[in-house]
């Protein structure tokens, strides 16, 4: 049966194999004089072993089907928001990015009234910019029109 631990353990083993394969480009050195590839390979082997142990012991863990994903849609949208922020931050500047991010999360995801969305988005983006950039001197990116 596909259980939670068996699936997770298998993914860890796969990750270990991929990492071990990736270390082929690094000089391994010798056992007595380790090179830059030695430790990553050793860790990949340990991760693989532990992943295998998780698979072996995973028979008693809850079945994969029992996992509830009711919040997954929301989670994907929030991650998309993070990705947008990463792309837009240096293009649009901090304030515009935060306005768009908050407008999306509050207006589209949470369906709040437009006036409330506008007030929160503008207040938070300009307020936090003033606090961090002007008062605490943390450099934050500016976009078009110095915004």
């Amino acid at each position, binding site marked *: 049966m596909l259980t*939670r631990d068996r699936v997770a353990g298998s993914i860890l083993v796969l990750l270990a194999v991929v990492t071990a394969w990736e270390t082929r480009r690094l000089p391994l050195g010798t056992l007595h*004089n380790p090179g830059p590839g030695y430790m990553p390979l050793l860790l990949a082997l340990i*991760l693989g072993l532990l992943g295998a142990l*998780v698979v072996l*012991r995973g028979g008693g863990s809850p079945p994969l089907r029992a996992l509830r994903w009711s919040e997954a849609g*929301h989670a994907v949208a*929030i991650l998309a928001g993070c990705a947008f922020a990463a792309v837009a931050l240096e293009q649009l500047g901090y304030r515009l990015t935060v306005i768009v991010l908050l407008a999306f999360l509050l207006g589209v995801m949470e369906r709040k009234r437009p006036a409330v969305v506008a007030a929160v988005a503008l207040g938070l983006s300009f307020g936090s910019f003033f606090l961090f950039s002007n008062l605490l001197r*943390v450099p*934050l990116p500016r976009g078009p029109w110095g915004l």
Partner: protein
Amino acid sequence: MVETLQNLYLGFSVALTPSVLFYAFAGCVIGTLVGMLPGVGPLAGISLLLPATFGLNATNAIVLLAGIYYGAMYGGSTTSILMRIPGEAASVMTCIDGYEMTKKGRAGPALAIAAVGSYIAGTLSVLALMFLAPPLAAFALRFGPPEYFALLVLGLLVLAYMSSGSMPKALAMAALGLLLGMIGIDTMTGFFRFHYGLVELGDGIGVVPVAVGLFGISEILLTAGLPTPPAVHKPRLRELLPSRQEWRDSAAPIGRGTVLGFLIGIIPGSAHIISSFVSYALERRLSKHPERFGHGAVEGVAGPESANNSAASGAFVPMLALGVPSGPIPAVMLAAMMVHGISPGPLLIQQQPELFWGFIASMYVGNVVLLILNLPLVGLFVNLLRIPYPFLYPAILAFCVLGVYAVNQSVVDVWIMAATGALGYLLRKFDFETAPIVLGLVLAPMLEMSLRQSLAMSGGNYAIFVTRPIAATMLFVGVALLLLSLRPLLTRGADWRRSVGLEDKRALGEENP
């Protein structure tokens, strides 16, 4: 003794300057808020505010960040008691009896006992820190690379052993963290590992984006789509006073929690979270009426709350004296100190006594500030919990982006935060702990360096780890722990985790350090 008092006098002369006092106060207020808000644990809180300290001098910065840390320990209990929502993971055990007390109309006394217990534990553990850190630092001057390697291995094994879940899963997470720590330029040979064309990875993956992703973002991803939390009970000031019986019942658990918490906090690798679990289990076992636990026993609030505050101070001992973080939060604090050009370790106390003793004295001041903040002003703070989560999480997310970007002015860090947020979400869905990843990430360069330096010292002979007594002892303890944890695996018997009631934690849901 006289020397310690003289040093403490020096510390207070630093801690009572207006600027340090202001930052201790600000840290405590922010920490209380951070501890109360579900979704922003102390780890994410400290990480996010790290850039805000860049403009400060080192003492002010560290005092501010430490204030956030132990402020969060205080604040976390409020939501646990009033709403059965642990603001941070160390408060999970407080939920059980604290919330039952609220249901019985004793929310005020529960909050008061938690605050007083935290104050006593916080103050006494700083006293212990003050006496223990300097001799430990003097002892650690004898440490060479083999001893550090053994200490780091022991730390990771203890963290895995003390974790609430299965040890192979916790160790796998530590290995994953160590692997993430391998990314970047190898300091010994200059080889750029696993960069995939991104020059920003030269210095490796930063601890801040990973910590914010794994703890802050993953918490938002898990909770944003869920139904809204229950209504908040707002206690009045005159309801806060515990009865004489409640004081009497709490005295011994506070004392035991203080000692236990400090001892657990000090062990390299263990998390402060576990101290509250062990304290709860101990109180339940020692009680003449264990059946009261789970139904509003004041001991179930007093013990764990004292223990988690005491552990928070205890965790500073290995960080300050050895330069080795004992958990993910001290790991971020260590990174913060390095940003300010301080290298914690055996020489810190000798070379920068104003910073060390000023920090110690500011912790005494901070505990007084927190007692004042958490008793009369609790009603004021509770108002924050009335902000609906659909408004709260977008704001937290915006601060996460701001905080992570501002550390290195790098959008790569924002990408790392998003990726580790998704990773943390999946790992927690699959019942994995994420704290060992952060610790592994921080310890990886130290571990690799100490291994390679040790081998260079011995001409490639691995016997160096067993022929040096301190290193051998630490490795022996680590192996013994590993064998101990294998025993239930082989005999299918219950291990210590079950006996201290960690299944209760599972019943309460996911953790959030």
